[in-house]
């Protein structure tokens, strides 16, 4: 599908403000932090718009968003962890859950948010970009400055960790 590149500040603010807010909220679990971040990012996008080179607008936007987010986290001294849990191997053998378990775990938005916050940052970011925001793997790669193969792997492992946490 051809991508419409918004050109004006108003369009960007309107189109992306809500996405950025949801992104930040799902990564932090905190509405105030998310609101601060959305404002901060919009400011940066506004400044950066002049230097934007036509290309993947989504990728560019999310790169800015991500950098602003990380700066914000550093400033607030809540460094995101990116270490892997030791026991990743246990994800190798997960049995198929019963239908009732599936439904029970799916219904609870709060549980999902909690499980998400338990993921190491890189994985949390990858699954939020993919499943909450709806970015393509290419756009996530651009935003996070990693190869697409890494994106694939992070999304996969992120989902497995999440599944484990939701059991």
């Amino acid at each position, binding site marked *: 599908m051809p991508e419409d590149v918004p050109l004006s500040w108003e369009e960007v603010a309107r189109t992306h403000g809500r996405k950025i807010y949801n992104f930040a909220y799902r990564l932090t679990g905190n509405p105030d932090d998310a609101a601060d971040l959305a404002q901060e990012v919009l400011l940066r996008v506004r400044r950066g718009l002049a230097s934007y080179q036509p290309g993947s607008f989504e990728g560019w936007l999310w790169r800015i968003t991500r950098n602003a987010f990380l700066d914000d986290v550093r400033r607030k001294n809540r460094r995101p962890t990116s270490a892997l849990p030791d026991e990743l191997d246990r994800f190798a053998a997960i049995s198929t859950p019963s239908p009732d378990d599936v*439904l029970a775990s*799916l219904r609870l938005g709060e549980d999902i948010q909690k499980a998400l916050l338990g993921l190491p940052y890189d994985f949390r970011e990858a699954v939020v970009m993919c499943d909450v925001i709806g970015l393509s793997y290419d756009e996530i790669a651009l935003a996070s400055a990693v190869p697409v193969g890494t994106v694939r792997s992070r999304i996969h492992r992120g989902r497995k960790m999440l599944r484990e946490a939701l059991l």
Partner: protein
Amino acid sequence: MTRGAVVFLLLVGMVMGAGPALALDDLTPYLEQQSAAEFSGEESIVCYTPDGTVSELTVVRQADGVRVVEDGEGAIGVTRVYHGDNWVLGDQYRVEVSGRDRFLSRPVTVVDVVEGDLVRVGLFFDQSSGALLASDVHNADGSTYCSSRFLSFDPKRPVIPDDLLAGLTTGPGSSEAGVVDADAFPTEIAGFSLTEVYEGPAAGVTNGYYADGIFSFTVFVSERAIEVPELVDAPVVKMRRGEYQRQFYPGQVIFAWQTRSGGIVLVGDLPLDLQEDVLEALPAPGKPNFFVRFWRGLFG
């Protein structure tokens, strides 16, 4: 013994095993068994659309001719399943039992619905319960449109809570039948036959159901533009005859557009090429003329 002979014997064995007169080229017995089956399981459906992939994982329970489908958003679909007496398979299709296989470690019968050289649909029926465990739907160019797969399957009769049955409508269609002028709908559209016409679901809307035995769609027609709130953000696509709003869901697509004389919404499970064929046969997108709008502006 030739391979053909082996297949033949296998098929004969299966026919005998399956009980009363089961014609090889007939889908009816499979569909009857499928609607009578009792089971629960998780089913995944993935569709490859021009707008990207859409997929869904649902929990399915079926018993007593009622099918309950639930997904992670708490959505619940409760439908009656029964094989309609008026089911007719379109002339373009040929049914071939292509053999036996295993799926989820269970013996399945593989039934292909063939159209010319194209395997339009592949169906995998569980031999013991009759449930449809997997299906593949193909576009005219042979590419896959949708695949469904049970990922877990339990042939035990599931419990369906009474409160879920409350939402069940009593018969086919929730709108009133027979009160509208069925002549407004062509009896045939792109190889699909009109089987039912209803009034509803809103005042001034009528809808016609079309089926070819494998796929089906419903056309909703109104003299006014039809507004579907969920489609507000749906992509607008340019097709041969104009622009349509289109939204894909797992296993289902919706088109909405305005014509010179009102609005049309189409919903169905058509693969991509049949979507085009059907849209081609329906009134093209267009704006109502000035006087129509002026008149309505004055008198509503």
